[in-house]
């Protein structure tokens, strides 16, 4: 081999090595304030994925958007100033819609993975947004059909007005697919007066209540308690976005007459999910929110792309669009042509056990 060729080979090798050792930064937009378990759980989940797989070429950088639509722009600008173009966002739909506008205005390529935004405005568009959860229509259809099988006389739907991006289309689709008598009352889930809500609910007759609340608003447990105070035999239904250990604190014993839809099977019915939760508990000494499982899943999808050398938004999007199906430890992720997924919903009646 001539000297020149050796130098070229050495240069290429160094280039390859420098490429191999570079760290890809991923922004995680979540709620990191007031001791919120959600953000903690998601950050820890991402870290747990990296640690359990011995990955050191990915760095998770958490950003606190407070799940507040008004803070999305400043946090997104901060991410872009930090030169990060791969984003995982765990915020609710109202925030996702804000972020969607910013991404659409963006000149430089960015790729975003949503783990909790179900809004239908993200559906059916070929953009740089990918979701590992199904959209709100599919979700509400499943829930409506499940509740309808119980053939209640009167179903009271308590709708949160705070996360409008989710609850408005959710109410619409629920009504579309629910067969039976229902009434809807509105509540501001993060700030309400229990006496006032009790007074409102007293005006309705109901044998089941559907708490159409997102954002892991643990206050939903208080409404459940008010409902039970009014009707001791009432059946309570939550959305999948209530699956947090905090609900146990607020719901009291009403949890035993509640059903929780979930994106994952019950722990006692799925060994993979159960072993993940157990391992996580061992590592961090608490039970994670179930949205953190979605973060874990996204991390696995992103890492598979990085391992194939797809480190930038353009090549990653191109790769995902061509592969579409990913096998992950917590189940398959099958993206459609628009980056959406269709997942099965599971209905869990022993909620307390989920968080033990």
């Amino acid at each position, binding site marked *: 081999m001539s000297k020149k060729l050796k130098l070229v080979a050495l240069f290429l090798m160094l280039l390859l090595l420098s490429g191999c050792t570079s760290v890809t930064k991923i922004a995680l937009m979540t709620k990191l304030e*007031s001791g919120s378990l959600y953000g*903690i759980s998601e950050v820890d989940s991402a870290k747990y994925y990296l640690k359990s797989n011995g990955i050191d070429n990915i760095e998770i950088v958490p*950003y606190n958007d407070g799940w507040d639509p008004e803070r999305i722009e400043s946090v997104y600008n901060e991410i872009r100033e930090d030169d990060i173009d791969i984003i995982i966002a765990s915020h609710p739909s109202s925030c996702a819609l804000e972020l969607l506008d910013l991404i659409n205005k963006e000149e430089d390529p960015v790729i975003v993975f949503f783990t909790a935004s179900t809004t239908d405005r993200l559906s059916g568009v070929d953009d740089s947004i990918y979701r590992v959860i199904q959209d709100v229509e599919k979700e509400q259809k499943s829930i409506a059909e499940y509740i309808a099988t119980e053939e209640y006389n009167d179903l009271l739907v308590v709708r949160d007005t705070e996360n409008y991006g989710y609850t408005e289309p959710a109410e619409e689709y629920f009504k579309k697919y629910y067969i039976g008598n229902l009434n809807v009352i509105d509540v501001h889930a993060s700030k309400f007066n229990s006496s006032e809500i009790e007074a409102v609910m007293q005006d309705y007759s109901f044998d089941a209540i559907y708490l159409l609340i997102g954002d892991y608003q643990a206050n939903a447990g208080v409404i459940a*308690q008010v409902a039970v105070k009014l009707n001791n035999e009432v059946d309570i239904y939550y959305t999948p976005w209530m699956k947090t250990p905090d609900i146990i604190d*607020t719901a009291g014993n009403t949890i035993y007459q509640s059903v929780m839809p979930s994106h994952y099977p019950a722990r006692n019915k799925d060994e993979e999910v159960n072993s993940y939760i157990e391992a996580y508990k061992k590592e961090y000494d608490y039970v994670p929110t179930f949205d953190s499982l979605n973060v874990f899943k996204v991390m696995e999808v992103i890492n598979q792309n990085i391992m194939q050398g797809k480190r930038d938004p353009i090549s990653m999007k191109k790769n995902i669009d061509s592969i579409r199906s990913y096998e992950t430890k917590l189940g398959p992720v099958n993206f459609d042509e628009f980056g959406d997924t269709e997942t099965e919903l599971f209905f869990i009646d022993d909620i307390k056990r989920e968080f033990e």
Partner: protein
Amino acid sequence: MKTLRGLTLTIEMVGIIVIVICSSILLQNVKAVIVNDEIEDQRSTLEEINYYLNTSLDENMREFIKISEDLEQNKSAIDLDMFSDMYYIDANMRLVEILTKDKESLIFTGYDVSASKLGAFLETLEADTPKISPMMRSLELDTMSVYVGLKTDKNYLVGRIGLEKIMNYLKISAQGQGAIIVVASNDGYVIDSTDISLPFYVVPEFESDTAFEFEDYFLFKQNNDYLGDDLLVLVPKTHVLELLERINEQLPIFFVAIIIFVLLKIIAQEYLIIKPLQRLSSTVESWEVEVQPTMSYKNVLDTKEIKAISNQFTIKSVEIQAYIEELNGANRELEILNKDLEIVVENRTKELTDAIGKLIQSEKLAALSHIVAGVAHEVSTPIGVCVTTNSFLKGELEKLISTFESNQMSKQSLMDFLVKLDESIRIIDNNLIRTVDLVQSFKQVAVDQVSDMHYKFSIKENIEMVVTSLKHEYKRYNVKFKIDCSDALYLSACPGEFSQIFTNFIMNSLHHGFNKEEDNEIAIKCICEDKKFIVEYWDNGIGISEGNIHRIFDPFFTTNRKSGNSGLGMNIVYSLVNRMSGKISCKSGEGKGVYFKIEIPISEDFKVYSEANN
């Protein structure tokens, strides 16, 4: 040649560099000390804040106890402001009575807390012993709180101290200290802070007794026993940065001062040392030793030290002049003495040369005496045989005459006599011939020894004649000779010189090398090789010690002067070899015998013949 100016400049430049480096190191250390002091101060601040929070929570506890006592006594005016929520919970963990309630609190009578963390905390209470819970998620609204609980006979009294109240306590501390205080979970997640602008979302991992440095802040961490969470203090670096900035601003002044100092020093040493020294040097250079030095340079040497050098030079120059004169006189005397000494040395050298010549001559004669003694010994045997045979013949002749006179002589007796006569004549003849040969041979050796005749001779015969002539010397030594020399090898040289060389080798082996009880060997080898005639002599005697081997060719060197050795034998060998333009070397060691090698180049004066080219 190095100059004083160059040297001092170099030293000063090195000095400046050293000062700059040391100053930089010192500056870094000073900065480190300032930063460390600040860190220590702020660590104390954190301890004070932690202490203040604990004191405030203790105050809450005392107030809680007072409220509980007032409630038992059914006092009408009870101040519940210290707690965000206060209520009774029954043994079934249901809220039974609300004493006070935050306006946003969600709780209501009948609220079930059994499955909550608060419920778990209440179950740990002992009767009539109030206790503060760790920080936990509130049941009342979406925030974190600390609860004070008291177990009474009938129920539990619970007081909630919301995160906002805790943060209020901390804000008071923060305002006093100009710092940001953060409450964070043990995993590093921020629960709340006294200022929303933080340089992190998740607190970086670091030990509680160390400080963490951000660009604009120092960060300190300490666990609070009541909250069970970490208290963090973010201290702006402004104060430290101002100090460091001030140092950085003043540093150039320091360096300028050093440079001015060095320049002044260079100028001073130029005018006070170097120039006066140059003038002194010029004066010394122009000073003629014979002339008294002029002191005209004195007026420019205006420093005490330079004046001292000048004065000393004047004193020493006078002393040098006197010393030089004294030295000149001594030199003249020395020259006269030298001339006398040369004559004495010349005479002594001549006497010594004569003495050496005589000694060499006496050595030759001593060698000749060995040969004469050998001649006497060797000739005595055949002469003795001749005498005996002649005596025998004489007896037989007398017997024959007697027989003839008595007419008793028979033919037989005459025949017998004639036979004996014939035999005796043959014996005498043989012995006389042998005697003649011996005498001829010895004569040749003896003549050769004392003459410098130059002719063609057989080297082997020369060696054998020497060996034979020394037989009487070595017969008591049990010596075996091994002579490796071609019969056809002839030299055109002075045979006496070789005879003397071999005689001295053999006599040295006998007198210094051999022990009479041992089996002694002498080997002599002669060859012609590379236009050189080479003689190798070897014996298996006791050898020569390492200390002596370098001295064996020195004149008068002997290890056995008591036995009458002059110490000239090997010196004569050396001189003879040198005279033939050859060289001699010796190898030996104690107990290893001795080996001599003589190499003589073939020349017009020294020719070698072999049978082939003879």
